[in-house]
């Protein structure tokens, strides 16, 4: 485990932000198409933080009832995507998709997570000239109260948190996506961002 804190300078952050923007634009377009709705895009917030800081951030979600699902992605760039959607938004999603039972709603949230995660990370990987795959069992709904006990979170010492909002204004559906990457991936990412930067100068 590399305990030295990896930091990103402004240029690196800008590149990452822009790549996320592109990938996220792609993901949103797919979700929007499937949901037949229009999402307003926002500028992603990128932060490097320790697991404790992250859990503290997640803690804010505990104030209201939230669904939390995660999906892992594997490759040169590997990590985990976490998706938060509050109960109100989830219910609106159900209404929008004509879902009338809890199991189907859970399924729809997981599906939404899957679409967002895979299209977001796949496009991001593509922009960085690599590939990622996804494994099925890693998509799950975790109760927030058990979050701090999550074994997967303990694999990380520090994480890049890319915080983007999914916001379907008209349907009143909004959620928050966190892309969490592991230590080794952060080194790889930093290298890759600099390759992209150099190619432009």
């Amino acid at each position, binding site marked *: 485990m590399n305990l030295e804190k990896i930091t990103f300078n402004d240029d690196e952050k800008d590149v990452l932000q822009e790549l996320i923007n592109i990938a996220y634009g792609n993901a949103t377009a797919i979700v929007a198409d499937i949901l037949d709705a229009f999402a307003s895009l926002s500028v992603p917030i990128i932060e490097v933080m320790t697991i404790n800081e992250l859990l503290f951030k997640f803690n804010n979600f505990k104030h209201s009832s939230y669904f939390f699902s995660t999906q892992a992605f594997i490759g040169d760039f590997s990590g985990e995507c976490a998706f938060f959607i509050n109960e109100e938004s989830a219910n609106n999603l159900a209404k929008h998709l004509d879902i009338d039972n809890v199991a189907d709603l*859970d399924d729809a949230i997981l599906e939404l997570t899957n679409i967002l995660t895979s299209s977001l990370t796949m496009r991001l990987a593509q922009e960085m000239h690599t590939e990622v795959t996804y494994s099925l069992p890693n998509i799950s*709904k975790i109760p927030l109260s058990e979050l701090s006990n999550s074994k997967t979170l303990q694999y990380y010492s520090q994480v890049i948190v890319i915080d983007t909002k999914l916001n379907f204004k008209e349907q009143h559906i909004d959620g928050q996506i966190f892309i969490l990457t592991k230590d080794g991936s952060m080194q790889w990412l930093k290298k890759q961002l600099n390759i992209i930067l150099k190619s432009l100068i």
Partner: protein
Amino acid sequence: MAQETAKHNFEISDITQKIIANIDSGVLVLDDELNIHSFNKWLELHTSLKEEKVLNKKINDLFNNINVKILTRKIKTALKIQTPTYYTSNTSKYLIPIQNNQIGTSKYSFMQQDVSIIPLCDVKKLVALIITNKTNMANTHALLKENIVVVEKLHNEVIKEREIIDRRVLLVKINKELIITDASKAYLKLSNYTKDQLLGKSFFSFKKYNFSKKLKEEIIHHIKTQSLFKFEYKTIIKNAEELWFKVTLVPEYDINDKHIGFLLFKNNITASKELQTHQEQVILNSRFTAMEEMINMIAHQWRQPLSQMSSIFINIKLKKDLGTLDAQYLDNAHNDIYNTIQYLSTLIDDFRGYFNEDEYITEVAFHNIFEKSKIFIQSNQKIDKITYIQNIDKDLKISTYKNKLIHVIVNIFKNSIDAFKDKKIKNKKITINATKENNYILIHIIDNAGGIKKDIIKKVFEPYFSTKSKNRTGLGLYMSKKIVQENLNGTISVTSNNENTDLLIKLPLQL
């Protein structure tokens, strides 16, 4: 060359087909209209449907539990985003209904399934569905969930219990080194200390506890022997208030029965201590009053014999001066004086007995008790012109604290005498009936002083309750009840009509 490649391709597809046929998962190919294009051996075996029978049929026609809308959405999504979409067993349970045949306890009658929908061909809109059996996992998961619910319930109960203890019970924990390790909220609130001020401090060095040397030694002894110990102590809390605590020292053990310290359960007994002190004061006061009355009575009782003796002495002097004093007269005078002194001495003994605390249980004839009781009210008897009527069997005997019983009867007599004072009643009567009933003696003391009003009859045994003149303490009946119940193991009750008041004392014949 071309032939070789073709052969190679054939081999690969042959291998792939063999794998697909034998893999421990269901594999089927669907288009976006849910038509079946492939159906592997695993599916054939589990559904008892042959591939050739299902090809080109819609999967939802074969299995009508399938939600067409959701499956179509997932297939279209997979084709669109070109990555797999999923059903997970923990939300969807299963896609294709397959009855569980395994012997053993399963929570599910149908196989729980994870399903991956993998995009195959965007043009032909084909996807592969890979179905894996997750029943065991789901079973474990369900069992775990059930247990979690049980554990959580227990946990919540424990937490609730602990909160109640924390809020209600005065508890201080100390470790083996007698350092305070915890204190309940209730204790902190009462003592006005913060946790920081108490924790880490030595139990004994905490000077506010103010233990006497003897108590401290006793506590140390019980701490050393790890034995339960109860004690009381007085302490001064932060705002200089004085508090009494009753403490139970209980050794504390961890789950491995290892001794880890002590729990001190405290009981705030300040209020009852104050009440006790108050009651002691009340009793003392009543005894003072009674004593004052006694002294008055002694004075009264002594006056006549003293003047008798005085006149004897005057006569002796007179006879001596006149020279008529003879031996016979002196002898008589001596006898008279001796008898009078004996009478005075008995009187003193009787009065002293009345106050004697260290009394023994003695067997006495009950009429004797009545006679003795009358001595204490003789002075009133003459002035008030009250007739005492007794219906007491001469052989009726009782084993009890004699003086205490006299005290009770005197109190009741006085109460009746006082009742007469306020009213003009001819033929004032106090009747005392005593009868034996099983192992009890029933004593009725009845006066005809006009009775007690209904609304106040319940209160006559309360302290300071008095309907009579202001200089009375109002403690007579209260004290009587206390003595009867606490010392004589009996009961006392009152009934009244508008003429008579009947006080009934029921006492065991043998105390």
